[in-house]
């Protein structure tokens, strides 16, 4: 098993690597997750780590963090062998990870979080709050982050919490930062801010491991790219000497998939009898009089920033909110608002944004998760054999290509993409008329994205109407038949002719600017 193509001509080879993992192998039982992987990061470098779901990225990073001990191979930090040491020691040596699920205490202030567990003391075990706040302020100042030391973390947005997390890591002497999908919950503006922070950290000589499924930002930030596939490493590749298609094809197991998922050019959609008609949908805080229709077999895309009300729209349609006014008509019949069971009975399925919290019951097996919505809608017998639902699962396992060992396997053990397929299967099992998809490809790899798009197309071919909410504009351009633009709870524009991703981006920015400008004088008038 000789693994090929490790480029020796890396531009930084004159300098010493900050951290270097050499021939790391790790197995779980019979499953060989990592097979002799080498990976290094130089000071001031962003080294992107790509790979499909379940390829071994997280395992490799857990080995780097010291959560797992490698079966074979060594880790060097600044030339010193740190293999086999604990998480605490790795942290103390300067390897820190920024988790997707942030590890901050929401009830404490920014300053208290930054110095948690090592607060400046006064005699008598008292905390020196004054010095604590001063030091926090100095730190924020030094890195020019837009934070206030005395703000409670619970009141901050996701982007600011992420900054606190980063600052906490640096202030503890981190030299290597691992960022796992850092932009997955950020809006466009926050993303730009994060990129500036990353550049600032680079200029101070930190090494950054950047894990992301979003190709564009990888190419914008990273100097080198490594791809993990089937437990082995491809690369590192020099970003300036490769291209997105090349990287995508290296990651892909079936190269044809990506190209094939472009929206079929000519589709005739009969709009005379819409599956869903929404009239004057409003909620107390977010939405302001939305009216739209979706036809059978049509994909309606919703384009807007985080906080524009797009997820509220999804939840309102599915009946999860109780402050909703307006009329929903499904297949000509009015829908009872604010009752998920009624929504399911009327044929609505909802793939929510946060699949681990909202989509899946992690303590249950795969077939139990797949049959959960069916259960809620009371489709099926009330006396259940132990194997009930396994045939459902077997069918979708094959249809959606869910990669797993058996139907009773815990859903928590699957990779993100496969988990998302399970959520999708849960709703297809109810034979829906309308599927609401809120960020269906968030945090899944290129292949799984292509598979999700194929699944969406298969659903529309059966006449299912789809409401597709996505932050990834290329996905909207590829998958949607029509797109509505949402800004601050309004629909600003409806596009039936979709241009390129860039066009969509421009239009959204124009609308945001227009709404903000229009909003300004009104606010001051009140």
């Amino acid at each position, binding site marked *: 098993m000789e693994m090929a193509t490790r480029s020796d001509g890396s531009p930084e080879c004159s300098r010493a690597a900050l951290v270097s993992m050499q021939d790391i192998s790790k197995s779980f039982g*019979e499953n060989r997750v990592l097979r002799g992987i080498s990976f290094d990061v130089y000071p001031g470098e962003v080294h992107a780590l790509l790979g499909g779901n379940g390829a071994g990225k997280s395992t490799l990073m857990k080995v780097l963090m010291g959560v797992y001990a490698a079966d074979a191979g060594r880790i060097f930090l600044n030339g010193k062998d740190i293999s086999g040491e604990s998480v605490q020691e790795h942290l103390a040596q300067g390897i820190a990870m920024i988790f997707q699920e942030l590890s901050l205490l929401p009830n404490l202030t920014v300053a208290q979080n930054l110095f948690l567990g090592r607060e400046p003391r006064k005699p008598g075990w008292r905390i020196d709050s004054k010095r604590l706040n001063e030091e926090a302020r100095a730190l924020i100042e030094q890195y020019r982050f837009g934070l206030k030391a005395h703000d409670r973390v619970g009141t901050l947005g996701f982007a600011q919490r992420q900054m606190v997390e980063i600052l906490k890591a640096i202030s503890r002497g981190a030299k290597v930062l691992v960022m796992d999908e850092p932009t997955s919950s950020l809006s466009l503006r926050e993303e730009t801010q994060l990129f500036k922070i990353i550049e600032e950290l680079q200029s101070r000589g930190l090494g950054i491991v950047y894990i992301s499924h979003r190709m564009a930002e990888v190419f914008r930030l990273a100097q080198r790219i490594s791809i993990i596939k089937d437990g082995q490493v491809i690369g590192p590749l020099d970003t300036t000497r490769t291209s997105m298609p090349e990287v995508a094809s290296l990651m892909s197991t079936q190269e044809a998939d990506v190209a094939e998922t472009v929206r079929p050019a000519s589709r005739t959609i009969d709009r005379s009898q819409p599956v869903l008609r929404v009239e004057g949908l409003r909620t107390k805080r977010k939405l302001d009089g939305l009216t739209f229709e979706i036809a059978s077999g049509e994909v309606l895309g919703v384009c807007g920033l985080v906080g524009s009300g797009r997820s509220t729209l999804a939840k309102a349609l*599915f009946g*999860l909110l109780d402050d909703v006014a307006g009329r929903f008509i499904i297949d000509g019949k009015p829908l009872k608002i604010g009752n*998920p*069971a009624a*929504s*399911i009975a009327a044929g609505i399925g*909802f793939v*929510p944004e946060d699949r681990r*919290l*909202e*989509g*899946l*019951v*992690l*303590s*249950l097996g795969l077939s*139990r998760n797949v*049959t*959960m*919505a069916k*259960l*809620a*809608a*009371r489709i*099926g017998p*009330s*006396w*259940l*054999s*132990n194997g009930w639902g396994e045939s459902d699962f077997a069918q979708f396992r094959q249809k959606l290509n869910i990669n797993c060992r058996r139907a009773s396997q815990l859903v928590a053990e699957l990779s993100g993409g496969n988990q998302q397929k399970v959520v999708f299967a*849960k709703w297809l099992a109810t034979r829906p008329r309308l599927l609401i998809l809120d960020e269906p490809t968030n945090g899944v790899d290129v292949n799984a994205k292509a598979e999700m798009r194929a699944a969406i197309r298969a659903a529309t071919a059966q006449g299912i109407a789809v409401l597709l909410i996505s932050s990834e504009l290329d996905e909207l351009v590829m998958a949607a038949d029509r797109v509505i633009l949402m800004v601050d709870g309004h629909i600003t524009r409806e596009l039936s002719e979709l241009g390129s991703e860039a066009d969509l981006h421009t239009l959204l920015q124009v609308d945001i600017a227009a709404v903000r400008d229009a909003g300004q004088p009104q606010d001051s008038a009140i």
Partner: protein
Amino acid sequence: MTMKTGSGSQDDRHSFGSAAIARLLLDNITYVVFAAVTVFFMAVAPNFASFGTAEAILRVTALVSIMAVGMSFVIICAEIDLSVGSVASWSGMLVAMLLEAGVPVQVAPIIALLGGGGIGLLTGLLVTKLHIPSFLVTLGMLSVFSGLSLTVTTTMPVPIIDADFADVLWNGDLIGVPAPIWWTLITVLVGFYLLHYTVFGRRVFAVGGGVTAARFSGIKTDQTKIWAFVLSGMTASLAGMMLAARSSAGNPSLGQGLELDVIAAVIIGGTSLFGGYGSILGAVVGAVFIGTLGFGLLVMGLSSSIQEVIKGIIIIAAVALNRRR
């Protein structure tokens, strides 16, 4: 396993086999500890190993087993019910007073049972609609119903003279099996069926495993929780009536402290206090475990105060060994 060839295979297989056994034992550590304790008593305590002992243990365990069935639903829903002991006392009092007032013996227990369910319903509504943690609601209920049981007769017990009542619930037997064991069997079978073979049972697991995901799947999470509390109230009520039958009187302090044994039984049986995992059979095994422990220590002649200490330590040890890794 397919890769193992050559001279090492014998050793590998052997070590794999013993590892598998060790794993099996670890996974079912409660049963192992249970078996060890039983064997210990059989070896040490005089006359412990007999049918008489088994029957006596199942008899005293009946109450905790029955209440543990209802409690399992509540705990798997990631809630807790601290009120079962005082609901049992209250139901015993209620049924005794109804019988005393001349309500027919066929009707009075049903009223008491529905009353127990009603208390569960109220608890469930308070927990789900007012969003008060079940720990607090049921702590309040514990206080309310133990106080009410004492108040209705100014702390006096109410005698039950109806022999049928005592026979059916406690004293009688059918084909050689005593009544309390029958009631345990029936409750366990109903509970087992509900939890493991019905839509309701699956919803209970879904609600306890991830209440948000369950809600987002259209499951009526509030309704599921309320039903779990109703079941707990009804099993507590049944146990309370059996207690009254045993002592031929409704006594306001009969059920005092039972909630702790019941919760311990459910947790020892492998149900997670955080919800989402659990089984009815485990809860029954837990109840029998606690009963065996009490009985064995009694037979060994230890004072009841020391029994409590040893019981507590073994319960903590069993749960510590059983915690999910």
